[in-house]
């Protein structure tokens, strides 16, 4: 993690950079929004339930966008749904991340029809795409871990939080 036990200061102290501290706290408590659209939402629920247990990773579903860090687009996005998703996304506080879960959210999947949006990336900045129809809970867990890697690789997160410069996104 890059957090080191200080030898000179004794056992009660650790030394690290502020960025790493901020990244550590953000990556360890990603709170996704409870926002199921279709079939993938059931696998998302299964991931949160007994066998896969998202809570152990510090991932707790929040019902309000005001309290959420991550929005998992779990399911087919229709044209009628777009303004709703945009509104919900705009209500989330910064920093915020988007996971496109499943084939429909990533690319429209098998529903290449008049009513379906061909991928949520047409209007939201997606951080992680998870393939599958629907993805297995292991797939969602892996996607969430990839997002954690991405968060940990960010630089100047503390600076950006106090208004100095912007966050620098590095390759995870």
């Amino acid at each position: 993690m890059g957090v080191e036990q200080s030898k000179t200061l004794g056992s009660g102290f650790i030394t690290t950079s502020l960025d790493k501290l901020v990244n550590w706290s953000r990556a360890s408590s990603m709170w996704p929004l409870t926002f199921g659209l279709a079939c993938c939402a059931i696998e998302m629920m299964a991931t949160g339930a007994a066998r896969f247990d998202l809570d152990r990773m510090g991932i707790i579903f929040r019902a309000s966008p005001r309290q959420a860090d991550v929005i998992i687009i779990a399911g087919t996005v229709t044209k009628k749904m777009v303004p709703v998703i945009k509104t919900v996304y705009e209500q989330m506080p910064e920093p915020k991340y988007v996971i496109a879960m499943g084939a429909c959210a990533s690319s429209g999947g098998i529903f290449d029809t008049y009513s379906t949006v061909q991928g949520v990336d047409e209007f939201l900045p997606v951080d992680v795409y998870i393939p599958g129809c629907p993805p297995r809970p292991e797939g969602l867990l892996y996607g969430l871990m990839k997002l954690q890697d991405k968060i940990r690789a960010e630089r100047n997160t503390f600076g950006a939080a106090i208004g100095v410069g912007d966050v620098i996104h590095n390759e995870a």
Partner: protein
Amino acid sequence: MAVNNTETMTINMGPQHPSTHGVLQLILELDGEIVVKATPHIGFLHRGIEKLSEHRTYHQTIPLTDRLDYLAPMSNNLGYVLAVEKLLGMTDEIPERVQRIRVIMAELTRLKSHLVWLACHALDIGAMTVFLYCFRERENITDIYEKVSGARMTSNYFRVGGLSADLPDGLEQEIRTFAESMPAHIEEYEGLLTGNRIWQKRTIGVGKISAEAAIDIGITGPALRASGVDWDLRRDNPYSGYEDYDFEVPVREGCDTFDRYKVRLDEMRQASRIILQALDKLKPGPILADCPKIVLPNKQDVVNNIESLIHHFKIVTEGFKPEPGEIYQSVEAPKGELGFYLISDGSSHPFRMKIRPPSFVNLQGLPQMVEGRLLADVIAVIGTLDIVLGEIDR
């Protein structure tokens, strides 16, 4: 309902709301905390499945049906393949083993769907433990799904004329163990909820709908049976060999959320019984009907036999072509009567496929159930209707 001179307030519930079970939007007109008018808005998950099926061969539509009621994929598969088989006039040629396995999978699907319903319904009303218990058992069913079809949810297992594969070795025993353990688990859920005073306060007398009103609207499934109407397609219009099994159709008279809960739990017990009976009657045999122009030949025959090769080529490239005509076939899905209305114009694509989803019709009962009651009861009523938006919007 209180009559006074205050103005009503209109609030919006959903489509982003954890209790609307997907993307249902309700416009609620409130007088204080009393709901005066509830208007459901649907269409947020309209994916155009009916239209899409008009451009696909009959076989290619099966995966689309998985995604209608995604809590009960195999029931949708069953309804669809039975409809196509009826259109082709091959209902009598389905081998016995296929019918037994279809029944086993359909009843497992009923359990799977009811488990998610109970998990979400209890979670909405405030009982967290039930959610974790129900999903624990549901994982066992998804394991069985995975072993027969390769997928946890979207199974695509049934084929026109049979199944995509036989049950793998040892699975019969696994299904038996699971079905035998289920009644004890149901007791466990009942122990958490039935005598719970909070649960009783939130469900007894909530969301009442009379038998007449339910029939007028067209409500089917557990919601109808909890209003005292003894109607179950498995018994009253049997398909896939349901007449061979000994099971009861639970009926209750309370018309409210609590009785719908009890009916569904009893149905789960009956489903385990049917699974065990079907396993007892399961004998080795073919898993595909002997209809070479409709059913894909096995791979060995395609390599060694020119006739099979031709059939294989024809079915894969253009599909089979039913005689022009129209049929309706319905099954008792976990949520009610799921019907498929197919029109054939003699080509390899359906001219029109109309789906009669139970959730869509049952949702019509919502305004009647919540009007005049408290806002908090809306949550309980949405849960008790057991709606799935994939099926409502299609």
